């Protein structure tokens, strides 16, 4: 059992606080949701947890040991993987090469990288896409390939940054199933950032709510659904963004 945690993490950009004293724990096999209105600091937190952004104060710990000073690729080697908003695949490369190059970067031999890439596509159920050029894929497939790429070499933790953005209800359901399988079958701890609050409430074991850079609520989905503070935090933004927050919370 492994644990990735943020311990009192604060981030300030030119004096502006993006995160203040945020703490959370993600354990193997757990699906942790991270929600909050736009600008709450969700992506900043993921950037800190994956080594893309150094915290101004506080620390990121892996099984109690500080990861301070390590770069993103070093964290990836230690089993902390992530996806990005919009997939960010190598668009000129075939799908299988996107996974293969990740395996190579993580120290596999060529043959082993090709084998694992094939097995991964198979596990996700997108083997048919192997030879497609990544840039030509529809949105949903692109996201699934990005998840497959992040799962190469079996990381202990997977941080998903808005994987359902732009998906239909049915596609989001398929994604929920995939996220559950990642946690159950692979024992991976999943941190899910998502605007689709319904998806988060449906799939996560535990949820952390951020607003203006601070944790305003944590708890299981039922508690979050009932929270007056969460509802209040979303009031201002939900109407502007047209996201199904209100419906999901009711």
């Amino acid at each position, binding site marked *: 059992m492994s644990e990735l945690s943020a311990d009192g993490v604060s981030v300030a950009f030119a004096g502006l606080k993006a995160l203040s004293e945020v703490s959370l724990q993600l354990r193997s096999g757990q699906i942790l949701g991270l929600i909050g209105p736009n600008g709450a600091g969700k992506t900043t937190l993921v950037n800190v947890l994956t080594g893309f952004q150094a915290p101004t104060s506080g620390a990121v710990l892996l099984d109690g040991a500080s990861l301070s000073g390590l770069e*993103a690729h070093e964290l*990836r080697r230690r089993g902390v993987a992530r996806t990005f908003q919009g997939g960010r695949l*190598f*668009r*000129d490369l075939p799908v299988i*090469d996107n996974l293969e*190059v990740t395996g190579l*970067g993580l120290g596999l031999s060529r043959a082993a990288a090709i084998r694992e890439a094939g097995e991964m596509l198979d596990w996700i159920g997108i083997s048919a896409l192997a030879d497609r050029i990544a840039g030509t894929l529809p949105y949903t497939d692109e996201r699934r390939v990005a998840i497959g790429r992040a799962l190469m070499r079996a990381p202990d933790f997977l941080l998903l940054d808005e994987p359902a953005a732009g998906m239909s209800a049915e596609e989001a359901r398929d994604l929920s199933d995939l996220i559950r399988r990642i946690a159950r079958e692979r024992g991976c701890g999943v941190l899910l950032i998502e605007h689709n609050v319904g998806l988060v409430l449906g799939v996560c074991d535990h949820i952390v709510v951020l607003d203006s850079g601070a944790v305003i609520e944590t708890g299981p989905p039922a508690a979050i659904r009932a929270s007056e503070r969460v509802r209040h935090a979303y009031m201002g933004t939900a109407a502007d963004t047209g996201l199904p927050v209100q419906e999901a919370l009711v």
Partner: protein
Amino acid sequence: MSALQIIFDALSLGSLYALGALGIALIFGVMRLVNFAHGDVIAFCVFALLWPSVDAIAIVFAGNLPWFLLIPFVLAMGAGLSVLCELVVFRRFRNTNPATMMIASFALGFVIRYFLLMLFSSRPKSIALLPELSQPVTVLGARMPLLQLITILVTVGVLLGLTIFLRRTRFGLEMRAAAENFTMARMLGVRANRVIMVAFALSGALAGAIALILGSQTGTANIVMGANVMLMAFIATVIGGMGSLAGAVLAGFLLGATATLLQALLPPEARAFRDAFVYGAVILVLIFRPQGILSAGGMKERV
């Protein structure tokens, strides 16, 4: 001049530009650096065959080696100098903005050029590099120097080899990923220094190939001999869509073809202005396709 001869002229001139453009695009791909020192690396490769002297007559050093030693020697000189440039200069500018890197490359180019100037003076020297290549051959009824045919064949060979390297080898895959999105490739564990070093080595070897062709074609060693190819190659990479290797090659051939066709078709009194017409065509292309004919896919989306 027969149509076939014009085609061969266009192909051989285009080959030269394509090889140059490829050398620039390879480095631009992984580093967003337009390496203006590339032309001076070409000149350096030719002078590497001579003993330092300011006399008008070249004192040949490695230039007398048999071809099977001479060619690897020149390619290795290009690759070596290019890797040295990366280690000593460009590595330190890796996180600066592209304009700073470009200025650094200009400065480095001047350093190389003045280094050659000090050792060899600015006077062009006549050299006999692979003289057997200037004998004429007849292909499909068109007569041309053997060198022209070899230039075309070598370029095709280099392009095939590079394609296989990029598509079939581990380094190639890492390089394509890094060229498209360097930050992402790095995050996924691709070793940045190694990929960049290989790109510089390949680019330098391509400069060496151009040096061999130019040296045997002109029979002179001149410290500014790389400048014209560099300029045309740079234009080809811009037209090709910065960062797209296929685009750079295609645009290199297009430029060569345009220049050759204009040379053949313009009325004699207008031929002196050939380059003005070529640049005019370049401006037209850029007005209608500012992103280049084959823009690189990863250019817009960066982590």
